[in-house]
């Protein structure tokens, strides 16, 4: 995402996280199902306000990538949070200056 933006400008944000996203529908050689282990939700907030949220299911590919848009009216921090099975939680912050 850009580090600076003009007030009211809509800019795109690309986020990707490394995660196998085990769908829970695959089997190993013995025919036993490999249990599901996926990221369930991704939330992007800006100064505490939600900008974009996604519910992920087994159908989302490995290393989930999202490209979405946001509009900033004042300088602040974007927070990206991924939550998933087996207590998976990752948070990343990115500041932006709005002129």
């Amino acid at each position, binding site marked *: 995402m850009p580090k600076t933006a003009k007030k009211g400008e809509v800019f795109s944000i690309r986020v990707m996280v490394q995660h196998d996203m085990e769908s829970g529908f*695959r089997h190993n*050689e013995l025919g036993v199902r490999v249990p599901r282990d996926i990221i369930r939700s991704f939330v992007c907030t800006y100064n505490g*306000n939600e900008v*974009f949220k996604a519910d992920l*299911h*087994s*159908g989302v590919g490995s290393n989930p990538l999202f490209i979405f848009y946001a509009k900033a009216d004042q300088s602040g921090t974007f927070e990206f949070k991924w939550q998933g099975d087996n207590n998976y939680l990752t948070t990343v912050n990115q500041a932006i200056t709005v002129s």
Partner: protein
Amino acid sequence: MRYGVVLAISSLLTLPIPVTKRACVLIDNPKTMNQRRQLIVSLTALSLCPWESASAMPSEAMQAMQAIVGKSPVNTGRVYFELPPLVESGNLVAVKFSVDSPMTPTNYVRAIHVISEANPSPNVVSCYFTPLSGKAEASTRIRLADSQRVWALAQMSDGSFWRTSVDTVITLSACTDTV
């Protein structure tokens, strides 16, 4: 799922399976056909039959959409859904969906749901937007298990629903290989 197996196998016996599709599956699966592979062949043949595609979509996808929509009517259109018509590997299919909307607090897109007809689980991804999003557009990469129709269902702030679909052909299915 059991209903789908019975329907698929009965149609397999009664309808002539296109030879090209059968050949395609043999090339993809050089090992001996086990029961799981036969199920995939029959489901593929079922999805390619022209008379079948004209009728209602598979029940699981319909139920998933019904759970989201409830009693409201669903309109067709307004959603721009980009999905390649021919995909080499179903493991990572880039998709983009958007709705042209002013995204003001009184008129914005609440969510866009991607629903698949032939994946083991119909819900693929749901993206929720807010007026702070600026644009109701998102791109991501999804898995597609087989050649199928994929739906994008948009929920607007005024409570209306719009949907569109794209038919796609998958050469190599996702999630069917052993670990």
